[in-house]
């Protein structure tokens, strides 16, 4: 390959990434966009293999076969409900790869034909190592929490923040020392890596399971930053472009998630939300009664409704009831009714998760309506059907300043003509907060497993 051509071809890759993301602006073009992005990646890989001073291929081939095989297997076998865990793992692997590349660049100094590091390269190596490390272990903890291999509750200990701050200070000190003092101190580098890996763990353990969507989005951003840092380390622009695109993507999603929960990022990261389960929303549920509804009555109301707005929560996915919901919606539509799905930004366990789960059940994507667009439509809805959702429909967010979720934007289910809430029991939701919607006079409760109840509703409407 002629010298100087490679950077231009890398530029083609970068352009394909950008065009690929642009095509994600509509579900119609999104798949094609993803292919363009993948093509960009393929080009980058091929150019690297042809242009860079690659002297031995066996390790590369082995790595590509093993990694590619594992990645393909994971992508094929993962369940859509487990997508947050999958993305958490991928974030971690991305961070890990950046850590290893930065580490290799540092450690190979002193070998034949390797020049000593310039101070600024050393800075980028330290930064890449740090970000890569916390992304690796932080993502792994997020994975363990989401997979329920460890407690979803915040893990806290006395003086936690002070301890974390000390660890961080130690990392900075070691990094600065490494850059300022000539010569590569390998032991200090290893200590820095160890402490950074530890900090990744420490930063994620105090964050509760309900806040994991924010954490994954943030780690997504870190994995991009880590890739950009690697770009600085090996002086390659395409890594910087791709990494900063991912970095900004993760930041935007983090911001959206925080807004949807009415929390600041600092609050999510450091407040250990949900550690001390709030008993109620200030108001006690004692003495309030709920209206229970039979499957027969609920079926009648749904069958003759003109507009039904389904409000799915993660409980729907847990019960694996997405497909039955679709069946129910089909029946309502056959009876001349209209069905829409109201999707709260934090309805699933990661941004947009609920949309994927419903799309998997063949719900047409134009029936999936986001919060700001669906809220004005609730007064027109004959029935709002709440399935396994709780905090995102809790009116306390509007009218109870003492509630932990006060001020959080919610789906205005209480404005619907009537509401049917499908729930296993009266236990409070993920965030452990009581919900006055359940005691509202317009609300009827349909207790039981969501999937069983929905199947019963389908059977009942069919026999009408």
């Amino acid at each position, binding site marked *: 390959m002629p010298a100087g051509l490679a950077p231009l071809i890398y530029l083609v890759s970068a352009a394909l990434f950008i065009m690929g993301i642009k095509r994600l602006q509509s579900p119609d073009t999104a798949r094609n966009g993803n292919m363009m992005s993948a093509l960009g990646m393929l080009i980058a890989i091929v150019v690297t293999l042809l242009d860079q001073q690659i002297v031995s291929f066996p*390790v590369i081939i082995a790595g590509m076969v093993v*990694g590619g095989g594992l990645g393909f297997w994971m992508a094929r076998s993962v369940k859509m409900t487990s997508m947050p865990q999958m993305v958490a793992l991928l974030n971690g692997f991305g961070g890990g790869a950046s850590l290893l590349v930065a580490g290799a660049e540092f450690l190979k100094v002193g070998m034949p034909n390797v020049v000593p590091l310039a101070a600024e390269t050393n800075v980028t190596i330290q930064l890449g190592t740090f970000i890569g490390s916390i992304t690796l272990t932080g993502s792994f903890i997020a994975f363990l929490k989401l997979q329920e291999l460890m407690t979803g509750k915040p893990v806290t200990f006395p003086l936690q923040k002070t301890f974390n701050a000390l660890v961080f200070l130690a990392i900075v000190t070691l990094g600065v020392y490494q850059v300022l003092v000539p010569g590569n101190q390998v032991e200090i580098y290893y200590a820095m890596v160890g402490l950074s890996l530890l900090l990744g763990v420490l930063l994620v353990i105090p964050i509760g399971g309900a806040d994991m969507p924010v954490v994954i989005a943030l780690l997504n951003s870190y994995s991009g930053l880590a890739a950009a840092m690697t770009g600085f380390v090996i002086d390659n622009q395409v890594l910087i472009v*791709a990494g900063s695109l991912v970095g900004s993507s993760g930041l*935007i999603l983090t911001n959206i998630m925080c807004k949807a929960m009415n929390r600041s990022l600092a609050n999510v990261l450091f407040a250990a939300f949900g550690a001390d389960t709030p008993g109620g929303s200030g108001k006690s549920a004692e003495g309030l009664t709920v209206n229970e509804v039979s499957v027969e009555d609920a079926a009648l109301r749904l069958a003759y409704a003109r507009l039904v707005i389904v409000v799915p929560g993660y409980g729907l996915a847990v019960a694996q009831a997405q497909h039955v919901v679709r069946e129910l919606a089909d029946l309502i539509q056959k009876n001349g009714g209209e069905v829409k799905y109201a999707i709260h930004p934090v309805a699933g366990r990661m941004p947009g998760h609920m949309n994927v789960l419903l799309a998997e059940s063949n719900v047409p994507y134009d029936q999936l309506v986001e919060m700001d667009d669906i809220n004005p439509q609730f007064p027109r809805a004959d029935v709002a059907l709440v399935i396994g959702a709780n905090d995102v429909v809790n009116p306390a967010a509007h009218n109870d300043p003492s509630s932990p979720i006060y001020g959080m934007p919610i789906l205005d289910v209480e404005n619907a003509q009537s509401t049917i809430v499908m729930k296993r029991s009266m236990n409070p939701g993920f965030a452990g907060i009581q919900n006055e919607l359940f005691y509202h006079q317009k609300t009827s409760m349909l207790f039981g497993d969501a999937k069983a109840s929905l199947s019963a509703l389908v059977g009942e409407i069919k026999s009408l």
Partner: protein
Amino acid sequence: MSEGIILGIVVFTLATFLGFELIQRVPPTLHTPLMSGSNAISGITIVGALIVAGGDFGWISQYIGFGAVVLAMINVVGGYSVTDRMLQMFRKDPEAP
């Protein structure tokens, strides 16, 4: 500072702004595929991993390089294929073949 670093900072800043503009227009319904897809893009670290693994740096190439290529490839292949798997489910008329 060397020209390379300065140029890098320029590219980084501009690409971040571009990223903000682009990604703000992605509808919430596609946020999960956006995350897995952008994850795949961050697998661009594969370029660095290949350079390490393909170099002549003894154990560093053999072990660290191998590990880096494996992790980055999982990111690339896993990210793109799972994103494709999700995106093919998003249809306006799922009944159509």
